[in-house]
């Protein structure tokens, strides 16, 4: 039966069966093609915009372009901070047939250390083969020349030039201009908080200190963008659109290179600070702290050996002595004290007093000694300033009392930041009852007040504060804000800063100002004056006040013997001055550490500055 059925063939039925099956199969083909086409319609027509956008996002990358940093000039247009091309030797591995051979041949031309070679090979392994990788940075001019001549031998080897900040005057402007350095995590976080991070997308460096930091936003400029087409590995195929970066503004400072050099020469081998400003505006003419350091070291990242040397140097070159050096003002504030005394009626211009060479508080045995052991004899306010009589001011300080002194001196700006346009500034200390309570948890003693009269005790100031307070004297009560910036220049257009003057101090009798200024002028012009010798023969008139600050207190009966003291404990020499005597255009404050008398070491520095100032016609 089974066999029989096997034998029977029905070709027609079988053909029919196959046709049906073939039709089913072909219908399936058509159905599945329809599904594919429907899916294509969905992708290419209905979702076209979504995929179009994603496709553009794939291929278009936005590359930020770094703006050129603004330059910095002195008042005469001399470049103080510039952008110079630094050359680096770079290799695109993809374009080099035999990397090893190329490296060997290059090493025959210029010196390539094993470390440089190693870090290069490391980068080669890490980066894409079409990226340019630096083999040696900061090439010397000679190396650049050698490589340029031989470049045809090395396909894929390029000399890349990048702009890098340089400070041609080295340490001369370190403490004013500061320097820039690589953007670090802290900088980045600050930029993010200020929502400026986008503007730094292409920037490597940022102002770290000084004017470079203070005017970062002016100097930096605005980032540009370039829209490029990239492939899947990020290689740039072509540029689609470009929006150039806008350079930063150039800064023109009121500083004068000549005055700076004068200050540097005067302080050579010494520790100290010089600041000079125009009392009419607050424009800073000289700003120098010695010793300094070379800011160029910081631009490319300072080596830890160099940095530790700076950090650990006993001369403390990193301290900006003009604004961060805090010194007892010593006798330089006697004119200020005298003005307060006149105003408070403690003394009159004709009040006389006998100076036996010391001052004693009633009922106290301790003697506050005058610098002249035998005393100045009869003194009034003029001679007390001219000869820098201590006893006169001990007495006046006690009569004024701590509260009046503290309040009045704060009006001169002591104990407060001057507001100069760099961030590195100390407020120093103008002591008061409250301050001493907070600081030492002790009441104020009258004994403390006595030495305040000669700018000792807890009182400290910065050289800049001495200069601005002296400016208030010569401006007869009006204060200025010391400003290093004179103006900015952008695309040829100069935009000057607007200087502000403020009434810091009002007096009941304006003639009191003249008393003080006359006394300061006579400090120079009369033979008894402490600065007479320093200014003898000057071709201009000027006024000033010397100071000699004790660093350690001398025991009651001991002699001050400079030779016996450790060098660091010797007196600081101070000087504040102005010129010309009438309508002054320059005020200086000078501190020279551990060199003794203000008249003998600090005043001559001022003399040199004034001499240069008038002979060179600065600020005319």
């Amino acid at each position: 039966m089974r066999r029989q059925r096997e034998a029977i063939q029905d070709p027609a039925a079988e053909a029919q069966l196959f046709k049906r099956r073939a039709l089913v199969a072909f219908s399936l083909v058509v159905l599945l093609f329809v599904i594919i086409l429907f899916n294509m319609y969905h992708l290419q027509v209905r979702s076209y915009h979504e995929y179009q956008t994603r496709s553009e996002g794939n291929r278009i990358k936005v590359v930020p372009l770094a703006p050129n940093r603004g330059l910095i000039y002195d008042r005469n247009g001399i470049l103080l901070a510039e952008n110079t091309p630094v050359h680096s030797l770079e290799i695109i591995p993809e374009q080099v047939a035999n990397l090893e051979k190329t490296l060997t041949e290059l090493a025959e031309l210029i010196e390539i250390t094993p470390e440089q070679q190693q870090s290069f090979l490391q980068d080669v392994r890490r980066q894409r083969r079409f990226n340019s990788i630096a083999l040696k940075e900061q090439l010397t001019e000679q190396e650049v020349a050698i490589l340029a001549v031989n470049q045809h031998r090395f396909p894929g080897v390029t000399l890349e030039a990048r702009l890098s900040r340089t400070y041609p005057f080295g340490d001369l402007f370190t403490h004013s201009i500061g320097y820039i350095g690589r953007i670090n995590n802290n900088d980045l976080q600050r930029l993010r908080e200020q929502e400026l991070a986008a503007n730094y997308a292409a920037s490597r460096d940022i102002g770290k200190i000084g004017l470079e930091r203070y005017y970062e936003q002016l100097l930096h400029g605005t980032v540009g963008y370039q829209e490029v087409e990239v492939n899947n590995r990020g290689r740039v195929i072509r540029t689609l659109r470009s929006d150039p970066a806008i350079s930063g503004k150039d800064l023109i400072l009121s500083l004068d290179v000549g005055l700076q050099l004068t200050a540097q020469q005067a302080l050579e081998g010494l520790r100290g600070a010089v600041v000079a400003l125009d009392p009419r505006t607050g424009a800073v003419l000289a700003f120098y702290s010695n010793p300094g350091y070379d800011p160029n070291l910081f631009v490319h990242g300072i080596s830890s050996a160099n940095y530790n040397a700076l950090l650990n140097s006993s001369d403390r070159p990193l301290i900006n002595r003009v604004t961060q050096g805090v010194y007892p003002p010593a006798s330089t504030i006697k004119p200020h004290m005298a003005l307060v005394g006149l105003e408070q009626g403690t003394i009159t211009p004709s009040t006389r007093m006998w100076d036996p060479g010391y001052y004693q508080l009633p009922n106290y045995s301790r003697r506050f000694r005058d610098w002249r052991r035998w005393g100045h004899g009869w003194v009034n306010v003029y001679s007390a300033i001219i000869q820098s009589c201590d006893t006169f001011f001990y007495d006046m300080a006690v009569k004024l009392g701590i509260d009046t002194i503290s309040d009045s001196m704060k009006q001169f700006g002591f104990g407060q930041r001057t507001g100069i346009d760099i961030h590195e500034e100390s407020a120093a200390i103008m002591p008061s009852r409250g301050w001493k309570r907070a600081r030492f948890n002790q009441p104020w003693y009258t004994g403390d007040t006595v030495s305040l009269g000669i700018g000792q005790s807890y009182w400290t100031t910065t050289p800049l504060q001495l200069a601005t307070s002296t400016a208030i004297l010569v401006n007869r009560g009006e204060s200025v804000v010391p400003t290093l910036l004179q103006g900015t220049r952008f695309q040829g257009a100069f935009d000057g800063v607007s200087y502000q003057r403020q009434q810091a101090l009002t007096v009941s009798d304006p003639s009191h100002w003249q008393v003080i200024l006359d006394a300061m002028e006579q400090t120079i012009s009369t033979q008894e004056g402490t600065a007479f010798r320093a200014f003898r023969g000057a071709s201009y008139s000027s006024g000033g006040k010397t100071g000699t600050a004790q660093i350690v207190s001398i025991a009651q009966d001991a002699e001050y013997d400079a030779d016996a003291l450790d060098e660091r404990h010797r007196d600081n020499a101070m000087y504040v001055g102005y010129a010309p005597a009438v309508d002054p255009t320059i005020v200086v404050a000078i501190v020279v550490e551990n060199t003794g008398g203000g008249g003998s070491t600090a005043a001559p520095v001022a003399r040199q500055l004034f001499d240069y100032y008038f002979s060179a016609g600065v600020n005319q």
Partner: protein
Amino acid sequence: MNDVISESQRPRGLAIFHIDTPLLLGLLALMGFGLVVLYSASGQSQAMMQAQLIRLGLALAVMVVFAQISPLTYKRWGLPVFVLGLLMLIAVLLVGEIGKGAQRWLNLGFVRFQPSELMKLAVPLAIAWFISNHNLPPKLWRLLLGFVMCVIPTLLIAKQPDLGTALLIATSGIMVLFLAGMSWRLIAFIAALVSAFLPVMWFFVMHDYQKRRVLTFLNPETDPLGSGYHIIQSKIAIGSGGLQGKGWLQGTQSQLEFLPERHTDFIFSVLSEEFGLVGVVLLISLYLFIIARCMLIASRAQDNFSKLVAGSLTMTFFVYVFVNIGMVSGLLPVVGVPLPLVSFGGTSMVTLLAAFGILMSIGTHKRILASS
């Protein structure tokens, strides 16, 4: 046996050389379009174009040779070749060479050879021979035996692992059984069995990379930089082509190499990006024309063996197309199947055109067969 052909039935044109003209024209049109796309997809590589042209010429020659061979000969040699192929597949697993992480190549000393390609033809021939020796529809035990003949090579190839080819070979075998008239009830039963078997496959048979492909297919956006990247970039290429495409050589996804494997498995995405939906419709029309022509040849064939072989080879060709397009457009998981006659590639092109040679043989030898 004689060669008497009646006057009215005398073959015209190329049929004298056993060439089916409409099919040849369809294939040439597709190859031409394919070359245009490949020029763009290869990044305008002269070398690649040259290689592809040589390969196409060689494959066409193979097709012509295969067309000359009588279906009778195919029927006679189906089983021996199948057995040989099976032995070689086993040999590959034992001593085969590894290329691209899979063991597919057999080194015969003078030539490197992929036995799985041979099986693409041997499996349908052998099963069709086996089934067509008896009445249609076949008995259940024959179906089962035919199924076993199909499953053994499929598993051997899947183990290499080469999921794409395994899928194609399974299709070619099962299509023979389907076209032979296996009952719908049995089909439903097998479908149920397969769906029950899927979890077993997942846990015991599939390789990790295969599982990953499936997972990625189900949700490519979860892994945009890993294995989902291919699918996402491919869909972006297709979608951004829009209706009319970005223009020849203008596809940003393909020219900038965001598209992976752009000249091989993902060449359809290049076409979609540069020629848009219009190009896609054209391509699918060409495929549909070729498949329709082949189905016609199958249904006109005069014996069951020829019908089954022709139908099976046609459907396998379709599965090629469908799996490739489904994969690159996100309808199916990524399985390494090239777009037939368009993708850049060697062995599979020759096998494909050999299949078309067999189809042409079936289409043009029927008088001779009828008289035998």
